[in-house]
């Protein structure tokens, strides 16, 4: 085991995959700079800068994957996926179904997500529920360096389109580029356990669709992903102090959902609290409630999500995104019901 940052882990695992498989290439805006290590190690043929033309290069990544490459297309921020939505929603997601399962799209889309560093509501969205809504798209959201590297390898083995989302509060490279800009005068609420951690000496794939139980508890099950997992883990000892024992499930992927673990744990506690940085309406939190009910499990349910456009002002932003205080309050209410 060795220690590695979240950003480094993903590039390291991707590097291991690229060294083993010459079909893997990385392209996107400024990737030669943002992932300069990969650029230096693999050269301009396999790490390619693109023009600011998301529709073109994301669309190209889909058909390049159909034609034998294993492309990793990087969309700098998931908000910009909206510019190239057709490539994912109408193309990548449909090929396998339309071809009767005869043609697969082994595509990995790398993109950053999430807020908490004052960049405004057009650069800080999560949108994983919006993407997972489309049948045929898988969405992965790691919360630790070890998971990030392992899930990156898992994405290559998955065989159909995977959107791999890197939360900017966990990635020091992205946070430095978009949040701090080399300044010491700003601080953000960065969950340290997610930014640096132990990783294996040689990466092994983590299968997509398997959640991870981060904490056991018998009164309530908190289900979260990304930075939300760390917020939940910060809330847990506070809730302990109030006599409320909470377990925390890290989904790791939105689609496919690890329904077995979700159902098993919520059946035990009968209380389910979803902490989801994505928008509350018509999304992951509601989906989780529906799935558990469909499985015949009767639970008390609450959620802490993002309800509105994310404000630029730091204080408003901190109130809008799921935070520890809101989690504690929601858990307390859920217990008293």
């Amino acid at each position, binding site marked *: 085991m060795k220690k590695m940052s979240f950003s480094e882990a993903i590039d390291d695992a991707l590097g291991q995959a690229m*060294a083993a498989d010459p079909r893997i290439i990385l392209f996107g805006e400024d990737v030669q700079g943002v992932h300069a290590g990969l650029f*230096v190690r693999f050269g*301009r043929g396999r790490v390619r*800068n693109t023009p600011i033309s998301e529709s073109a290069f994301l669309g190209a990544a889909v058909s390049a994957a159909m034609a034998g490459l294993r492309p990793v297309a990087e969309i700098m921020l998931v908000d910009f996926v909206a510019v190239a939505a057709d490539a994912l929603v109408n193309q990548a997601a449909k090929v396998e179904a339309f071809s009767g399962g005869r043609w697969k799209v082994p595509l990995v889309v790398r993109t950053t997500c999430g807020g908490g*560093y004052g*960049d405004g509501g*057009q650069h800080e969205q999560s949108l994983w529920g919006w993407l997972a809504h489309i049948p045929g798209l898988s969405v992965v959201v790691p919360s630790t360096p070890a998971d990030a590297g392992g899930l990156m390898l898992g994405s290559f083995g998955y065989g159909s389109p995977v959107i791999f989302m890197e939360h900017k509060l966990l990635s020091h490279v992205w946070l430095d580029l978009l949040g701090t800009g080399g300044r010491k005068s*700003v601080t953000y609420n960065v969950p340290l356990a997610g930014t640096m951690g132990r990783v294996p000496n040689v990466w092994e794939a983590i299968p997509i669709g398997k959640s991870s139980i981060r904490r056991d508890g018998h009164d309530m099950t908190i289900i979260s992903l990304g930075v939300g997992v760390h917020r939940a883990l910060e809330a847990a000892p506070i809730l302990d102090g109030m006599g409320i024992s909470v377990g925390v499930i890290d989904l790791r992927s939105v689609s496919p959902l690890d329904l077995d673990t979700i159902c098993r744990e919520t059946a035990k506690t009968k209380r389910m609290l979803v902490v989801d940085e994505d928008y509350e309406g018509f999304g992951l939190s509601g989906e989780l409630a529906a799935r558990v009910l469909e499985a015949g499990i009767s639970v008390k349910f609450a959620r802490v999500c993002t309800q509105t456009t994310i404000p630029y002002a730091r204080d408003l932003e901190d109130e809008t995104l799921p935070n520890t205080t809101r989690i504690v309050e929601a858990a307390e209410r859920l217990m008293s019901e």
Partner: protein
Amino acid sequence: MPADIWLLYELMLKSRLIEEGIAKLWNDGLISGEMHLGVGEEAVMAAIVSQLQQDDAMALDHRGTSPLLMRGVDPVPLIREMLGREDGMCSGMGGHMHLFSPEKLAASSGIVGSSGPAAIGFALAGQILRPGSISVAFFGEGASNQGMLMESMNLAVVWNLPVIFVCKDNQWAITTPASSASRGSLLTRAEAFGMKAIEADGSDVISTWNVAKEALGFVRTGKGPVFLLVHCIHLEGHFLGDPLLDMVRRPIISFRKRFLPILRMFFKRRGATLGVRIQSLQEILKLVFSIQAQKARDQDPLIRARKLLTTKDPKRLESLEVALKAEIQQIFTSALAESA
């Protein structure tokens, strides 16, 4: 009526000084997230915005501060917006990339290229509701490769919309040089849509004003859209803290932070040949040096305009600058004060 260099210089200097003040607030940590300044593009902004009329609209990109200031937006609530205050011009909801002024028909967006569709919609509304009005799209040459922008140009031509597409060409798409992001000429590309396309030197505010006057007259008289390509420089890189500029300005810190991780990957077993790896390293260094070389070139429109005014009337220039600096200081004092 010829260009009023005094007025243009005042507009440019006011914008520059306010943006320098904003940069200081950002450096002091009072502004979060990214900060894209228009430092270096003041000439094209002054040339266009000073010739707009009351009903005209502006579709802005992520560098909206300068054109809004020149359009007459109150700087105090604008600065307060960046400070994330409730009394900011957008109640602290938008921040510097998402500045909106319904009174001035000016809307910003942080999505590259989106000023194209926004401008043609403004132009369409103007054509029907406010005949004689026009709309402006501001964007960089990096945005020229966005489909939505090219689609907008085509639609503007087909519908004969009163819109001017102003491309601020600084030769960098974030940290990717324009030469590796597009080929051919942006002027001929625009002409291929059947649109009038003209060019200006954004370091020279008077010539840019003259070119803009011709372009705006063409658009305003219903002859169709115009593409205006203006060459300019970004003195502060893509955004404050730009990694390429950082490597030039703080080489030692940058070496530790940026080059050591790169070198670790350079020596990893398996991957490209040594020759390819060295070539990649050279390309990164070349980018850093080209940023440095660009800085050395005297393309700052303010320096150029100031030289001219020094020869004209140094006393008037001095009193203008002294008055403006005092005004800016007052603006920042007010912006930072607690609201009443």
